[in-house]
């Protein structure tokens, strides 16, 4: 990922997302799930489980992972990779906090 070509878009503030929860950002046809973990970190991954495209934003958030609501795959929010014996990965996006504003990194590099 090249930061130079990245376009940082403000999508909301930290408090918009419930602690240990997620909200969605619609980006054209794609839905990106923005997660807020118990320690107030934010993560952005495509709202699609690598298993059967389950909406990860609807899952239960625990530590740095989310459990998919459809078949309980556990996905790392940081890497997008399935945990345990399952294999597969979902796409991740750069996201950062500026104060309490959430900035999502999109652009040609993504």
């Amino acid at each position, binding site marked *: 990922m090249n930061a130079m070509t990245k376009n940082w878009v403000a*999508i909301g503030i930290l408090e918009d997302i419930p602690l240990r929860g997620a909200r969605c*950002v619609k980006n054209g046809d794609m839905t990106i799930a923005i997660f807020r973990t118990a320690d107030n970190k934010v993560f952005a991954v495509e709202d699609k489980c690598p298993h059967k495209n389950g909406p990860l934003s609807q899952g239960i958030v625990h530590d740095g992972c989310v459990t998919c609501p*459809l078949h309980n795959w556990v996905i790392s929010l940081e890497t997008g990779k399935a945990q345990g014996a399952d294999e597969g990965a979902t796409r991740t996006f750069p996201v950062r906090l500026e104060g309490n504003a959430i900035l999502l990194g999109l652009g040609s590099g993504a």
Partner: protein
Amino acid sequence: MTQKLVIIGNGMAPGRMLEHLLETAPDAYSITIFNAEPRVNYDRIMLSPVLSGEKTFEEIIIHGDGWYIQNNITLYKCHKIVAIDRAAKTVTSDHGVTEPYDKLVIATGSNPFIIPVPGANLPGVLSYRDLDDVQAMLLAAQARSKAIVIGGGLLGLEAAAGLKEQGMDVTVIHVMPTLMERQLDRSAGYLLQKQLEDRGIKVMTKANTKQIIGEKRVEGVELADGTIIPATLVVMAVGIRPNSAMAKDAGIAVNRGIVVTDFMQTSDPDIYALGECAEVGGQVYGLVAPLYDMARVLAARLTGDTGAVFKPVDTPTKLKVTGINLFSLGDFAEGEDRQEIVLRDAAAGVYKRVVLRDNRIIGTVLYGETADGAWFNDLKKKQTDITEMRDTLIFGQAYQGGSPLDPTAAVAALPDDAEICGCNGVCKGKITGAITAKGLMSLDGVRAHTKASASCGSCTGLVEQLLKVTLGDAYNPAAVMPMCGCTDLGHDDVRRLIKAKQLKTIAAVMQELQWKTSCGCAKCRPALNYYLVCDYPGDYADDYQSRFINERAHANIQKDGTYSVVPRMWGGMTTSGELRAIADVVDKFAIPAVKVTGGQRIDMLGIKKEDLPAVWADLGKAGFVSGQAYAKGLRTVKTCVGTDWCRFGTQDSTGLGIRIEKFMWGSWTPAKVKMGVSGCPRNCSEATCKDVGVICVDSGYEIHFAGAAGLDILGTQVLGMVKTEDEALEHIVALTQMYREQGRYLDRIYKWAKRIGIAEIKRQIMDDADKRKAYFERFVFSQKFAQVDPWSERVSGVDKHEFRPLATLALEAAE
């Protein structure tokens, strides 16, 4: 060019073959399967645990529907192939589908052999072959009456033990003098018979079936000596016959089975056969290990490896009946050139016999104590000369080379290529390698990565010992099944400690009970949230982030991420106004599907999450509240029309159902609760397979509970009889509260009842009026906080964030 591979049959052998094929050459073939059964590939050798109730069907599925989709395999279920046209290279199914092939694999398995005696086709005579047979047996077992199993071999005895476990009175009829004579010698057969008889199973040997008697359905079996044994269920488990008719019709060489070379090729070079229908070197096979070996060979051949050949090896036999340990291997007939070593321990019920030729093991029978099976198997396979250890051989591996060692040392001493899991052909080195390389800490981990112990499970003990050997003290198999990986405590301990320590938040529970993760996982958090909601209805603030999405969104998530909405229809009654309102909502929101549910209400499917509050607002205006069709809580109370309309009705079953539903809606429970009230014993509301049911009779109300009609099928138990509607309500509420307070999260009432015992539940609810009233009052108190319609709350703005996107980006940002 991708070749077309067509497979007839979808059992374990072709399933395993495809796994190998997809692993080495995922794109070599476009694959089509025709399956005469209406289901996916499941583990047939685990049918016995399903019959005995130790496993559910879901647990024995090998490839779910998703697997076929993922691997681009076309699976035709319920399609029986009726013709193979070898000239045109096509197959045609009974539904008229014709599919061309480049390579064809026939894996039609076998058919149960039905002894041709009069009455063999009466209703109530079953074979034991597939899930349909098991389900038919489970249904028959509900009558708790008499069953006869014809055949005292492996399959017959597993069926007998399973039916006994289901509460039937079981007799085994076997034509030979001792049980399992093909796998056991007489002594072991005798011990087995004794152990089965101790469990209450009657065994008749040297018994020849003359006919099955009965007018319209089975009434019993008559033996050749004139003895008549009454029964309502007869299971024939006398053997199998390779299913080779289709191949024969197509002009392929068939003997007992479909004749194949040692690389599975039939007399037509483009057609292969494997599994129970195939005959290799004059032999047909029925145990899973050789069939899996055929699968490996065929997959290799299909990917162009010309070196792979099938080599038959002796496979050990084990009986999958909990508590009975037997192991048999190889040839153990007596003979001049043979010697044997025998050990008997009558008190312990142990019998061991090793048969030797030229100081090498050729056969082994172990009964009662089978831990050394793998070791004997290894010695036999390697043809080890046992002269040196002859004196101590029979005592097992632990006694070789000096003083007795602990059992793990015996496993530790096994060579890396010693086979541990016979079903899946997994050797010791592969297991210990996976434990080390993948950092596995549990049996489940080993099963996921190596498949060892994942089929019949009889090597579970060995795998656990390997975990112990490899991990040392770090391996800690808890006696109590922990709630999840975040704690070593089981559900019951956690519930007890929540009360004892007055823990009132999830954070407090995790801190005080030393949770190993910072904020739990998707298994423990919903459970803890329920326990706290139940124990502290007034104080605890429900943690929505610890609820599954359905309970958080108050609708049911569907596979495409849309939701379904089910409003309450009290007791299944509705009006024209309600139906009109539903019709209007369906039109307004363009809801794609509307379905009548099994619980007598209406489901609207395919609603976008963003639309849910508006849908609820419109439904709310018509007087609807949430049907909680998504909740681990009270779902439906199904009713019949009772005395209002029915000429047989004895009480106002509709009124009672509505009253119960209005009293109990909104309550959270460990798992869903479905009820039914029938106005007479004809039971039109099917109350006797519900979590709680009522059968009205002239003299009052018979209360039932602990039924199931899901993964398990179970008739209810009778709690007791009461005279008035008020009493019926009080008893049902008290029973539900008892379950709420004691049930483990996700366990339905029947599982809780099995653990606590029907008698104890009856004692507390029927006999102890003070206890009953206390339960009742605690339920009433908790309802003060629970009976809030979640839909109208959300219509008025609660949890807005749940239903709206955080942001919608302009299209240019999306590239």
